[in-house]
């Protein structure tokens, strides 16, 4: 018998959780209030971390990122630009941190090469001429929505049933108090969609708190906003990071024909009412201009924000925890639910794999994954789909509108094609 698993949230974590569960033979239904990319995962900075950013402060996250970035380059080469990354020292403090960085890159087995100031400027002519030294690492650029679409296509290929625009309304318990069914508001077609299930995985990102309440758990979260700003010109060939402990405003990512400057962190009470503060954008501009002065003259074309849930001290059981992500279950409430909080785009496959293992453990089954994982390249499918052809134009327009304000806004054709494809794959088109 195939156990039925409902995964709520089709961001990168929910997608990879669905893939890993489907590879283990479960019958998986994936629900999202929008589509992949309409939430946090569609609003990242585009950086595929090699782990160098965390090498000094969090070696577990660093080694996870190193392994996972290589894995993504291998399973989804069509989604990656192997640009390399450059950590640049602009002052004596940065250089002092560089010593610590080199030591910990060695400890984490992250390869690097050293450049002096003039070599760094030769490699990246738009760098601030005061650069003293640099360290080259294998950071890369991840094409966000293409990656998410590849993961969704792979879900479909593994037999995952995808349900976009489904807003969770309620959960239905059986006699033992476990969940046996879920009801969703169908935001496109109208009405209520009901699904029976043996197990629920809550991957709803910044909405994990609200979703957990509907599921009978209580995950206390604090939404943290990250603000990123876009320069309308590609100014570097590689990812540029400031050589210092991870802080706000210290990354520049060459993304398509643009440069994305990231990231500030701001706590917020309500993601829905969050507004980007001009002072925070000013901070980003200061920091970005210090690395590439031209940014100060060009300014930002636009800014966008994404939200991460910070989990407050748990009252439940933490099944798997790193500083990067947590898999939470609770003794009070249904036993057939886990909540997955945190994670990065770079480590989302790993989070999915570990979540699938936790689901197997909770159900008391042993199901190794089938075959080798490789993400499909959706480009051929995209080329065959004309926006709106044979589908619901209103729905597609709505998808496109909901995806505004993210990493890939400049690629308007792709967003439209993607929307059409999602409708086709979900059977809603």
């Amino acid at each position, binding site marked *: 018998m195939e156990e039925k698993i409902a995964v709520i949230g089709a961001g990168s974590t929910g997608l990879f959780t669905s893939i890993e569960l489907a590879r283990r033979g479960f019958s998986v239904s994936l629900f999202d209030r929008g589509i992949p990319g309409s939430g946090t995962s569609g609003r990242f900075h585009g950086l595929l971390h090699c782990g160098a950013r965390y090498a000094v402060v969090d070696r577990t996250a660093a080694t996870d990122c190193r392994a996972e970035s290589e894995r993504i380059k291998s399973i989804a080469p069509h989604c990656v630009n192997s640009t390399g990354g450059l950590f640049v020292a602009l002052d004596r403090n940065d250089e002092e941190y560089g010593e610590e960085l080199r030591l910990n890159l060695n400890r984490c087995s992250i390869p690097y090469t050293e450049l002096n100031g003039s070599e760094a400027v030769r490699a990246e002519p738009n760098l601030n001429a005061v650069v003293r030294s640099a360290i080259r690492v294998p950071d890369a650029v991840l094409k966000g929505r293409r990656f998410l679409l590849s993961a969704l296509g792979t879900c479909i290929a593994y037999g995952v049933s995808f349900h976009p625009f489904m807003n969770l309304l309620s959960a239905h318990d059986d006699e033992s108090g476990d969940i046996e069914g879920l009801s969703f508001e169908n935001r496109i077609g109208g009405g209520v969609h009901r699904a029976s299930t043996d197990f629920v995985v809550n991957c709803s990102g910044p909405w994990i708190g609200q979703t957990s309440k509907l599921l009978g758990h209580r995950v206390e979260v604090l939404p*943290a906003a990250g603000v990123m700003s876009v320069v309308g010109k590609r100014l570097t060939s590689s990812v540029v990071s400031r050589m210092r402990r*991870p*802080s706000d405003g210290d990354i520049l990512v060459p993304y398509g024909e643009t440069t994305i400057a990231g*990231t500030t*962190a701001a*706590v917020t*009470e309500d993601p829905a009412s969050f507004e980007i503060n001009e002072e925070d954008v000013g901070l980003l501009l200061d920091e970005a201009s210090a690395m590439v002065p031209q940014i100060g003259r060009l300014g930002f074309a636009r800014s966008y924000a994404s939200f991460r849930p910070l989990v407050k001290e748990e009252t439940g059981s933490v099944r798997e925890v790193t500083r990067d992500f947590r898999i939470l279950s609770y003794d009070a409430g249904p036993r057939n639910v886990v909540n997955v909080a945190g*994670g990065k785009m770079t480590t989302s496959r790993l989070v999915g794999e570990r979540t699938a293992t936790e689901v197997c453990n909770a159900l008391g089954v042993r199901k190794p994954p089938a075959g080798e994982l490789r993400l499909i390249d959706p480009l051929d499918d995209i080329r065959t789909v004309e926006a709106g052809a044979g589908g619901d134009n209103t729905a597609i327009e709505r998808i496109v509108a909901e995806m505004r304000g993210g990493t890939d806004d400049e690629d308007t054709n792709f967003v439209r094609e993607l929307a059409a494809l999602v409708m086709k794959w979900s059977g809603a088109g």
Partner: protein
Amino acid sequence: MTVTEHSGVLAVAEGHDRVLEFIRSPESVASILPHVEEHRIQDGVSMVKFRIDLERGGVSPGGGYISTAKAVMKFRYGAASDNGVTIEGSGRALGSSLKLSLEIAVGKSDGSTQISWRAVVDTGVLMKLLGSETVQAITAGIIGEILENARKALSPGRTTE
């Protein structure tokens, strides 16, 4: 409540007048703030950009994505009394407004100069969201670094006890 109060007394080796001169100087006060990246005085207002160590509070806004955060504060110096000064600060960090009221008085005792200080800190939404324990840990860390820097600046030659 988003407001916390902190106070203490710091004994230093420098003489009364030198200490008074130090605490009334925006440049000197900026020099003892931790991790200062920029300081300038404009229209009588002291503007300081510095970094806050978040690891000290065990908090990682952004899920470990950042371990320090930039703070921008403007300090206005009140009318100096005979033996002290008041400083009003306002600014922003981690998307929250910050306010500071600082009273400093200088006195003498047993051959040393004593700096009595009292700070009222309003961390706004940070306190509400991160919780008082976390904010207290971060604030205490910053105050500890300031006091240590002040001790070094005003007790030259002495080592930490």
